[in-house]
């Protein structure tokens, strides 16, 4: 039975080949902070990190994760970006927000002081239908508080 390492914990899992990482996280592990909004890799709501790299968990087969560490929003709850998003009001309905923060965390980990253009480039894969983009940019630009 393979293991899945998520947010620093090891989970033994036994599931059908073909299931997505998003479904296993949400349905089997109860980690529902990761949202599924399109289910086909177009919107970014399901973004998680594999060894720090943002990936779309709805189109990542769980059996392909292997030994890589999965980081979900539940593992980033104390990241300064969380309070930055709240302070700058970078969310409305909030459904895309966990994915936004997971993407943003990967961005600032590799580039702690991203420019306007770098933020727009790094975050263009995360849709927000409420249109909180100006605030998301502000949150990321001021993420250290």
């Amino acid at each position, binding site marked *: 039975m393979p293991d899945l390492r998520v947010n620093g914990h090891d989970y033994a899992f036994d599931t059908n080949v073909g299931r997505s990482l998003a479904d296993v996280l949400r349905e089997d592990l109860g980690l529902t*902070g990761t*949202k599924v909004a399109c289910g*086909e890799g177009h919107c970014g709501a399901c973004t998680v990190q594999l060894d720090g790299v943002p990936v779309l968990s709805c189109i990542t087969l769980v059996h392909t994760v292997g030994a890589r560490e999965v980081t979900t929003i539940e593992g980033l709850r104390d990241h300064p970006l969380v309070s930055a998003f709240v302070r700058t009001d970078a969310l409305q*309905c909030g459904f895309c*927000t966990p994915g936004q923060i997971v993407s943003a965390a990967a961005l600032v980990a590799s580039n702690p002081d991203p420019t306007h253009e770098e933020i727009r480039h790094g975050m263009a894969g995360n*849709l927000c239908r409420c*249109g909180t983009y*100006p605030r998301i940019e502000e949150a990321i630009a001021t993420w250290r508080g």
Partner: protein
Amino acid sequence: MVGRDSPRLDGLAKARGEARYTADVQLPGMLHTALLHSPFARSRVRRIDVAAAEAAPGVRAAIGPGAVEGLEAEAEYEGYAVAAVAAETLDQAEAALQLIDIDWEELEPLLDATVAVERGSLVADSRRYERGDYERGLGEADAVVDSEYRTQTLNHNSMETHQCVCEWRGDGIDVHISTQYIWGVRRDLAKALGLPEDKVRVVCEFMGGGFGSKAGVDSSLLLTAELARLTGRPVRCALTRRAENMISGNRNATLQRVTAGARADGTLTVLGGEYTCALGWDGWLPPTAGPTQLLYACENVRTVEHGAKLNLPPMAAFRAPGFVEGTWSLECVLDKLAAQVGVDPLELRKLNYAHADAMDGRPYSSKGLMECYRRAEPHWERRHEVRARSDEIWKRGMGMASQIWYGGGGPPSYAWVRLGSDGRANVVTAMQDIGTGTRTAMAMIAAEELGLTVDQVEVQLGDSARGPFAVVSGGSSTLPSMGPAVRSAAADAARQVIELAAQRFEREERLLSLKGGNIVSSDGGSWPLAEITGLLEDGQILGKGARGPNPTGMRVLTFGIQLAEVAVDVGTGEVVVEKVVAIHDVGRVINPLGARSQIEGGIIQALGHTFSEARLDDPQTGTILTRTLDSYKVPTIADVPEIVCDLVDEPDVHLTNLGSKGLGEPPIVPTAAAIANAIRDATGADVTSLPITREEILRALRDAEARRRKEPVAAGAA
């Protein structure tokens, strides 16, 4: 408190991924539903047998046409659900769909709105409106502009698709649903199921957007309730993104012919419009003529609106339905008229200002549109400088458009405020926060009335079993309808505290008030609130509040103006929106931080409407071609221009105990027209069709060039 930036109370829960949406509801033994959608724009199920599906692995129930209302054998648009399967897993349910034995009879669809109107295929009776003498108005005009405009079909694409979980408990049902109207779902589902309303509990603590599309009971809820009844298990039904883009509602396409005439001094003498709305198979006729009827003081107005019934998915309300489409054409025509008579566009708008309601002469409860215009002046004065930055390739310009819309809310609406022995308050009402931040606004309003801080107030909403009736989150009505009820409930609780304090501290009630967490006497003396609430021990003070009526004999509306700065590449037709300035009057602003976010969000959605979004249908077959978020293009962070927000922020003294109107819809109304007017200012090109594609820009540039050659004197702005 009120009027100061307040981060939203539920921000942390949402940002940490702890907020539980309908999508996150997982009940023990829950089954999953897959829907069989019609592949044709118009068809009939000749024969169907679900037995093989029902016998498939994991399947617990399968239903077909006639099982519930809305699941019929006549499939009048593509995507219409004719059968449903509930299974232990979604994969099993989807696999079982393939085993349904079905014989479709494909029928000839009606897809053209103009043809539908000619044939009398209408969802509702055509709506005609006339005031004054239209022909006389035309005769008095020194200049008349008469133009055709088109708008496209748009999908809401809320991040959380339409979904619900139904669970029968005894003789009642619990429904978790992503909805804008908890109480409406309770009422309509009870009626459909033949249950007393209190047997239906509707829960929606958090929802992933709606924008108008989630305002009631639809067939997917009814079939889920039926599958839950048949199986005795909780059942989930969640639309896939592809189904969401077909059958969850849309902003209907329009074909509009708009006429405006003015005297040489710019005074409007006539306005007219004929609007054909491609509503799809069902829906209602949105007020597309509303802006033409309401925005300007014009004596002679004639409008007619048709709602074409077609073999396409039904429309649903979408953020200021009708007014978004109608403002686009009216405000474009107005700028063309301004150019013809040689009057500045801002002056033309001021000159034709409606000082009383343009339809019936009622006074406005308040109207800060002239103040919006005044604040627009310094921005508008920059237009010469903006145009001067044009070069051979990139032409720059500015444009504006006014905004008018409803947003006053109304009764009935109710709220309770519980005050505990710890001196903390709890606002309870069965409303929902669609994402606009109304939960936080309610806490701010209660805190202000009780002399508390926002973090001393909880807000319990999203459950029909837990609080009193609350309105639909639509029509920009949540805040102006619920806010006054909350304020009145908090005032009721405050009165009870003061009554107790007057006895306890031997003061007259009229001298006492609640401020800064204290009970304060105007003749000296101040006691912590907890000294009184502490007496309650396990008891609570319950304040009850109701929304009072709107002022009689007055018109309550929202107003604004937006200005856009654009750069147009005249070689390729590329348009870059460099800046949008939004100035709106919605009465008193409760939370400026949330208000700015509403304005930005509305404008960004409008940018999608203006440039990138369009549901494309095959004109021959009626097949929906844009079902995914890579083919239906909503704006990304990279598409956002500089946005400047300004709110008049004057309380409407005639409107309720709060003086606030709604802000959810106003910002999306004028953006497209302001951008089109800026494109005309920059290039002389007259765009008439949304979305503004490069092809549309290049066509408009060619037409402008042809006009220039024909009439060199009347050259356009470029």
